[in-house]
Structure formats: structure tokens, C-alpha cells
């Protein structure tokens, strides 16, 4: 370890004098873009799946109307929800059942070429894959959140003539989100860290920029150590932000 000082110095030369920090900032930006947009996509997908899963599947045959009308209504109220539910189960099963790296590789090297979309850039690919992946996890979190809301809230909404979906969006989901906010924050933190594998498909993230510094200076110790510290700092910042958000939501609950 006696040459640790020398290593630090070499790193600093590369990092500052040779302006590798610019790349690092770019990598940091990419990491955050992938995590943030992926997370937003994940929330959208997760919420949709969760809603499909808690949807009532009533096998209710209408009492009146022609045979066609009755069959149509049966399909709409029972067959379609059931099919969607099956599809969602499959989706969650696939995305929870394979490692994220595998999903990235399959998407990049199998799915995109099959669709004739090889030219899509790797950041976009990463956002889509991380979004779909976290959507599978968030759907379960969201489902739990929806089930944790008192069923009376849905009844209250329905009793004044609001539709199932209006009550869901206006009353149930907002309360569910509040309940699951800590878990969602956890998911986001996990996502930020998981993005460190996006260089498998060529995206330049935080990890890749530090690896290239290491490769240039033939020394990996200091770059990787710095990288670890940056990750920790990011996560600490996110943690504080989540705490603030939670406090804000709770305040609106108790005030006056």
C-alpha cells in the first residue's frame, strides 16, 4: 500500500488534468437518466398490472338483451379481465424469474433485431428494460398498497355514483401510494444501483467511465473506490429526499 499516494495522484491527473471528470459526469447523468425514466416507466407498468390484478372478475351474465349482447358483456366483464390477469402473471413471472443482465442482453441481441430495431441507442434500451423489470416488482408493491386501503374507501366512492376506475384513480391509488412510499423509495435505490450493468449493452454509465479511467491508468483501486463513494452519496441523497416527501404527505393528513 505504500504507493497508494502515487495511485491517487495518477488518478487525479487523469480525472482532472486530462478531464476524465467530464466523462464521469456524463456517465453519472446517464445512470440517473436510466434509473429515473426507468422508474417512471416502472411505476406506470406496475400500476397498470396491479389494477388488472385487483380487478373484480365477476362472472355476471346480463339478465336481458339479445344473445349477442349478453355474450359480448360476458366477454367484457369476465373473459378479458381473466386474460389480462393471465398475461400479467406471465409478465411478472418472466421479469422476476430472470436476472436483469439476461433481460438486457436478450432484449438488445434478440428482441430488437427480431423487430428490426437494431439502431436504437443503448440508453433507450436500458430505460425500457429497467422500466419493464421494475414494473414487475412495483406491480406487487402496488398491489399490496391497493389491498392495504380500507375497502370502505372504494364503497364510499361507488355509493355516490362514481365508477370503479374513477374511484380507483381518485381515492384508492393516492392512498395506496402514500402507504407504499417507503417501499417505492427502496425500489428506486435498488434501481439506481442495478443500472451499473448497462455497459453490457454498451451504455456509458458511471461504472463504465471509471473502468475506462482504470484502463487508461492501469490502476483500478482508486477509480473504483471513488465510484463506490459516489454511489453511496447518491443513495444518501435519495434517502433524504424520500424522507422529506413522506413527511410532506403525512403533514397533509394531520393538519388542522
Amino acid at each position, binding site marked *: 500500500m505504500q504507493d497508494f499516494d502515487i495511485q491517487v495522484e495518477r488518478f487525479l491527473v487523469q480525472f482532472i488534468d486530462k478531464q476524465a471528470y467530464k466523462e464521469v459526469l456524463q456517465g453519472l447523468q446517464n445512470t440517473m437518466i436510466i434509473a429515473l425514466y426507468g422508474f417512471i416507466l416502472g411505476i406506470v407498468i406496475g400500476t397498470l398490472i396491479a389494477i388488472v390484478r385487483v380487478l373484480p372478475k365477476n362472472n355476471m351474465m*346480463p339478465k336481458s338483451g339479445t344473445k349477442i349482447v349478453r355474450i359480448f358483456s360476458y366477454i367484457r366483464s369476465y373473459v378479458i379481465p381473466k386474460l389480462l390477469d393471465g398475461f400479467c402473471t406471465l409478465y411478472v413471472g418472466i421479469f422476476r424469474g430472470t436476472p436483469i443482465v439476461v433481460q438486457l442482453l436478450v432484449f438488445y441481441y434478440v428482441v430488437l433485431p427480431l423487430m428490426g430495431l437494431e439502431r436504437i441507442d443503448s440508453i433507450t434500451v436500458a430505460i425500457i428494460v429497467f422500466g419493464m423489470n421494475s414494473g414487475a416488482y412495483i406491480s406487487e408493491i402496488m398491489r399490496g398498497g391497493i389491498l392495504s386501503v380500507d375497502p*370502505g374507501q372504494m*364503497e*364510499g366512492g*361507488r*355509493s355516490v*355514483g362514481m365508477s370503479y376506475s374513477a374511484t380507483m384513480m381518485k381515492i384508492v391509488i393516492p*392512498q395506496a401510494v402514500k402507504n407504499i412510499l417507503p417501499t417505492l423509495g427502496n425500489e428506486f435505490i435498488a434501481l439506481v444501483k442495478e443500472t451499473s450493468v448497462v455497459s453490457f449493452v454498451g451504455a456509458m454509465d458511471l461504472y463504465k467511465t471509471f473502468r475506462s479511467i482504470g484502463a487508461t491508468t492501469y490502476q483500478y483501486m482508486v477509480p473504483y473506490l471513488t465510484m463506490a463513494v459516489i454511489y453511496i452519496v447518491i443513495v444518501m441523497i435519495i434517502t433524504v429526499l424520500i424522507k422529506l416527501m413522506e413527511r410532506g404527505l403525512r403533514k397533509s*393528513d394531520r393538519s388542522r
Partner: protein
Amino acid sequence: MIEVVNLCKSFGKNEVLRNISINIEKGEKVVVIGPSGSGKSTFLRCLNCMEDPTSGEIYFGGADITDPRVDINLHRQKMGMVFQHFNLFNNMTVLKNLTLAPRKVLKKSKAEAEARAVELLKRIGLEDKANAYPSSLSGGQKQRVAIARSLAMDPEVILFDEPTSALDPEMVGEVLELMKDLAKEGMTMVIVTHEMGFAREVGTRILFMDEGRIIEDRNPREFFESPNTDRAKDFLSKVL
């Protein structure tokens, strides 16, 4: 106004309602009483299809509302419901609780809905709570807001599902007073309750239920003075 024909409801193998047929006219104050487990609440909840009947028909506004083809939301606008546990929207202020459905469902303007809400809040004496969240209200206040919420839709009938059962004894009075006022104004009401004094005073008709059937359907004075069935005699001797 509401016509129930051969209404049956089972939860799995458990038959909760057995062949109930009854007509409720405009302006009636129907009080449903009976021992616990007799199906009172289930009966009430079937009236606006909060619980889907297993068989039978319920006619309201000329349509059989148990038919899945009928838009139940349309009928629920005219059929208010007040719950034992209030079921106020916890994520909204009192004012928003009162204006949400009028705006979303009746498509009222914000100003119109709020004017009506403030008017209702004044009426229940809670205009100073307009911007409070339900969690900061007492049980009695919550229930009054819940009643105001259903009134905001200008319903033709209000269903009350044990509206005072979850309240501290000292708060029961304020809710019953409000309900009495509504009754005086001619609101059609169907009330499941354990408040016998209230049933006697406000009810125009008593339905006594036991084991999923309505076994007495009479005016309150007759019912309380001389119940026909042994079951009702037994019940009254325990609760009065």
C-alpha cells in the same frame, strides 16, 4: 319507488337473504331491525347493489338494477348511502369529499359544487371544518360529513347502514338529530339501526328481520306495543 322481488343472497353455502319481496314508497322512513346475523345490512347493501344479489330483482326508477347491463352508477347517484364506518375519502379535505362526486359525476362546475358544499356544511354546523381532513374529525362529525356527502348528490333516497353503531355514545345524538331533520323534510330513508327509540320516533314502517326473512312489516307503534311473532317479542324484551 324501490321494488324488491324475490331477493336472495348467499355467501357460498350461507344463505343470508331468503326470498325477500317488498315495496318502498316515496317519503317512507323504513327502519330495519333484527338480531345480528339476520341479514339486515346485507339487505340494505343489496338495495344499491353494493352487494350483488344471488337472485331476484330490484326495481328502481323503472329499471331492474340487478341486471349487469344497467348502469348502476347512474342509479347510485339517486340512492345515497351512509356507512357504519363513514367511509369518507381519507385523502381529501371535507370540502373535497363533498364536491368530488358532484363535479365528477354530475359535472357541476367547481363554484357550483363548492357553493352547495358550503351550504351543506353550514347546515350540519361544520363550515369551519371545510379544509380539515377526515382524520382530524370526531366520529360524530365524520358521520355528519358523510351524510352531507350523500346529500350533495341530491338523492331521492338514502340508505343508512347502522350509522351510529361505531360512534361514542355521546356522539350518537348529533347524528340522530340530523337524520330526524332529514326525515321531517320528507327524505325517503331506509335505516338499519339498533336505536329502538329512534326507530319508534322517526320510522313510518318497521321491518323486523330474522334468519334472512322479513317476518314483521308493520307500523312502529303497533310493532313495539304488540309484536306478532315470538321472535320479535324475544328480541324486544332483550333490547328495550
